[in-house]
């Protein structure tokens, strides 16, 4: 493989050396993704080839946006990793409805007793009080969309990207919207006199 500088990569991918440069970049990205995704046993070699193919299109499309603040190959690998995870999340969650997921948690907010470290009677009372406050503030402060998104992401573990997709927005916009929601909730929690120390006393370390 030819060693290239950042400028070399950009020039070759735009010029007559494009096919060779694409082959070299493809090999690099495939190798990188094999390591990156090694802990996901369901990912096949064919999946990796597909992720890289999609990434190469994005990389070629976005060549002008590369500002040279890192090595070109690191930047390209970042795009490949992002493509791979977007697709893996889509596949993993494709049959899960946001509505069904959220509904599971909406009715009963009564906490169950921890099985591994049973709380003291005082702790149980504090846990119940905190749970009631959190439930009330969520209902009072958040819009329906924010509430659904927060339950799906924080409690049910759905990726931000997948929730955003179902809500017709993107990951960055949803994160920003939830950040606004958290700021409002924080203000209310502080106004209610609830501090990290209270949570620590009731539930233990985060």
């Amino acid at each position, binding site marked *: 493989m030819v060693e290239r500088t950042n400028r070399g990569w950009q020039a070759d991918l735009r010029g007559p050396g494009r096919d060779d440069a694409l082959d070299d970049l493809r090999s690099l990205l495939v190798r990188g993704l094999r390591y990156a995704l090694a802990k996901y046993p369901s990912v096949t070699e064919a999946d990796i080839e597909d992720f890289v193919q999609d990434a190469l299109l994005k990389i070629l499309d976005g060549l002008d946006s590369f500002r040279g603040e890192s090595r070109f190959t*690191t930047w390209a690998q970042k795009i490949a990793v992002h493509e791979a995870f977007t697709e893996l999340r889509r596949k993993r969650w494709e049959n899960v409805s946001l509505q069904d997921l959220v509904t599971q948690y909406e009715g009963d907010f009564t906490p169950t007793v921890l099985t591994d470290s049973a709380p003291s009677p005082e702790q149980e009372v504090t846990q119940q009080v905190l749970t009631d406050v959190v439930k009330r503030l969520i209902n009072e402060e958040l819009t329906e969309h924010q509430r659904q998104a927060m339950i799906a992401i924080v409690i049910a573990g759905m990726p931000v990207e997948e929730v955003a997709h179902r809500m017709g927005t993107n990951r960055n916009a949803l994160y920003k919207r939830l*950040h606004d929601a958290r700021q409002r909730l924080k203000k209310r929690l502080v106004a209610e006199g*609830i501090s990290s120390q209270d949570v620590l006393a009731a539930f233990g370390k985060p």
Partner: protein
Amino acid sequence: MTRTLEPDMIKRMVYMVLSTRPDEIGCGECLEQLDRFIEMKLAGKNAAEAMPLVQDHLDRCRDCREEFEALLKAVRSLA
């Protein structure tokens, strides 16, 4: 079926809310800077100190953290 909110979930939610800071960056800004952050880390520099908002976002966002960890492995493998 209705599931119950376990104490651990309430705890996670309250900690997450209480640790909210006004200057957080979103996933887009984090991803934008991730290649630079990783190279700094691999060069043995204190990336968290140099780019605290990226580190803060990675501490909060599971999706971005997952991509960061994977990218770190990929870039290390090419070094």
